[in-house]
């Protein structure tokens, strides 16, 4: 295999938070990311799943060097972005683009569709001829499935899905090599999500893009990712090959995330399915001792409360769980047995 295009090595990001008034002012540190390591290859999609406070958006921002890190390296095609001179970084940013969750909110309401797509070109190539820009804009609109006749329309005249297409066109107009998608379909109607996902997949193949695809749960990542990383309170719980992660999750938290996604099957949703977790996500200000998931984990033992597990290799990936060798986690939403009795799936 060729060298990775992106190597994230020991990345830790802190936020300083000040609470209280003038007198009892407290300074708290939140570890938004702790010792995150991964690699991304050309043409590969890494799916990142995490609930609120998992650090998924911080990770996206730090990978694009929009957010300083406490320690660690983000090595993009041989250069550490976090140690880079601002001017050099600016030039490098052309190679990395982002797509945001809120399709309408991420577009300037005062610019037409054409101006929105042209803006990155004008910024990075100030001497490009108008005609050339126009041709490129029209080409991009066609590529993302927007009608070129709508080049003078404003964002509010488009539907959510069309706005997201516009956002994709803007991101791709500079021919980036890396595309970071931060929940690009979660604000869209269910029936529209597939269109945008298919578009991203097609474009990725055509342009050999590397992609980081962030989601708040595991339901959609299966359709776009080659590998999946599960974050919880700023740490990697599990990272691995897509097929094996869904078939046989190795970390109890991964399993809990899978079990929590409701499925449109009344028979199964009604039998009291074991969701695989209890309680709420702890506050990032006061993370639990030991394994971060232990207060919610149905499999926790004494050791989990004391000692933080490191990522250890498992089949086709890594999981941070003390009991990974002994636990054989069963999903109980797997396809029912051929006998037709769905209640035996747990056995």
């Amino acid at each position, binding site marked *: 295999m060729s060298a990775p295009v992106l190597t994230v090595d020991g990345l830790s990001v802190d936020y300083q938070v000040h609470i209280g008034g003038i007198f009892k002012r407290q300074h708290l540190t939140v570890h938004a990311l702790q010792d995150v390591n991964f690699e991304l290859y050309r043409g590969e999609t890494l799916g990142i799943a995490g*609930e*609120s406070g998992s650090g998924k958006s911080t990770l996206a921002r730090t990978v694009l060097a929009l957010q300083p890190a406490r320690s660690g390296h983000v090595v993009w095609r041989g250069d550490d972005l976090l140690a880079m001179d601002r001017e050099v970084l600016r030039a490098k940013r052309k190679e990395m683009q982002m797509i945001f969750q809120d399709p309408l909110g991420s577009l300037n309401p005062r610019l037409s569709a054409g101006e929105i797509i042209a803006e990155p070109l004008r910024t990075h190539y100030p001497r490009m001829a108008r005609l050339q820009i126009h041709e490129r804009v029209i080409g991009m609109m066609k590529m993302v499935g927007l009608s070129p006749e709508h080049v003078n329309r404003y964002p509010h005249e488009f*539907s*959510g*899905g*069309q706005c997201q297409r516009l956002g994709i066109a803007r991101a791709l107009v500079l021919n980036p090599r890396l595309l970071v998608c931060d929940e690009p379909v979660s604000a869209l*109607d*269910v*029936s*529209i*999500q*597939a*269109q945008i*996902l*298919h578009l991203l997949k097609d474009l990725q193949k055509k342009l050999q893009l590397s992609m980081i695809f962030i989601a*708040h*749960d*595991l*339901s*959609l990542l*299966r*359709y776009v990712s080659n590998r999946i990383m599960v974050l919880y309170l700023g740490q990697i719980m599990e990272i691995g090959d897509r*097929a094996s992660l*869904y*078939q046989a999750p190795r970390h109890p938290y991964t399993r*809990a*995330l*899978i079990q*929590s*996604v*409701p*499925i*449109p*099957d*009344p*028979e*199964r*949703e*009604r039998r009291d399915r074991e*969701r695989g*977790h209890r*309680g*709420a*996500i702890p*506050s990032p200000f006061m993370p639990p001792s030991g394994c971060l998931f232990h207060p*919610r984990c149905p499999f926790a033992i004494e050791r989990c409360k004391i000692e933080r597990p490191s990522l250890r290799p498992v089949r086709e990936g890594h999981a941070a769980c003390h009991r990974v060798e002994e636990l054989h986690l069963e999903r109980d*939403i*797997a*396809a029912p047995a051929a006998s037709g009795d769905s209640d035996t799936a747990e056995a």
Partner: protein
Amino acid sequence: MALLEVRDLMVSFATPEGEVHAVNSVDFDVEPGEVMAIVGESGSGKSQTAMALLGLLSENGQARGSALFDGKDLLKLSQSELNQYRGSQVAMIFQDPMTALNPYRTVGSQLREVLTCQRHMERRQANREALEMLEQVRITDPERRLQQFPHELSGGMQQRVMIAMALLARPRLLIADEPTTALDVTVQAEISELLRDYQRRYETAIMLITHDLGVVAGLCERVLVMYGGRVMEYGDVRAIYHQAEHPYTAGLLRSVPRLDRLDDEELHGIPGNPPNLLELPTGCPFQERCQVAIERCSSLPSLTRANHGGLRRCHLEGAIE
């Protein structure tokens, strides 16, 4: 007798671009103690249907038709008459708890207000009931929560407080507008279970408004599917999920990502864009996105009896593959 009988409900809005018909002749019943769902996407009219029932339409909106709650037409009541129903008989919870909770008052004072106003309780008794309700909605450390302000709670906690507040008045109908959409999946599952438990214990009827067919599957008995302001299909959840008879329902069911079918590698969807209510086609509102549309679809099909025992609005016969 049905608890709520909605007949020929129309909701329209006067806009600079003309009159927009958000809801068109919608009929449905909510039986006492049942959980029913109104399912739809943007522009389906699902939320405006709920808002119309509680007199919460925006200034330029108008509702016609009838909505008999216990024999009284909610649409004909004055604001002060409606106030006797809101909260005490019909309560509503919203997607974003922060828009429904008062940021300047503690959780305790907001919960107690429901009891002192609606159920004329004394402060001390109200406090006790509020505490019990917080325990029922599984809020940890409830005594401390009563002293806290909404912003000090997590999103899931805020949602629980709002549910607690809605349930304190012991409403006979709870309208829940996307109650789990903004929450993390692990929290979503818990809120769904909470609603189900409460409904079983107190036989409160729940009208769930959502786009999430997974949540509906776990919670609801009957489902009303809307598109472009009209009812497309109506009936028993199990029957419809097993054999949808409207192409839109079938398409929507196919669009849900499924973690129980790992052999299906492709996410399905519906082509086209959501309906533009200003430019709805004559005839079936779904025709432009429908893959089995025929010429006849340019005239509006009526709601007819479906094989699953419910209703469907489609010219084509039988189940959709």
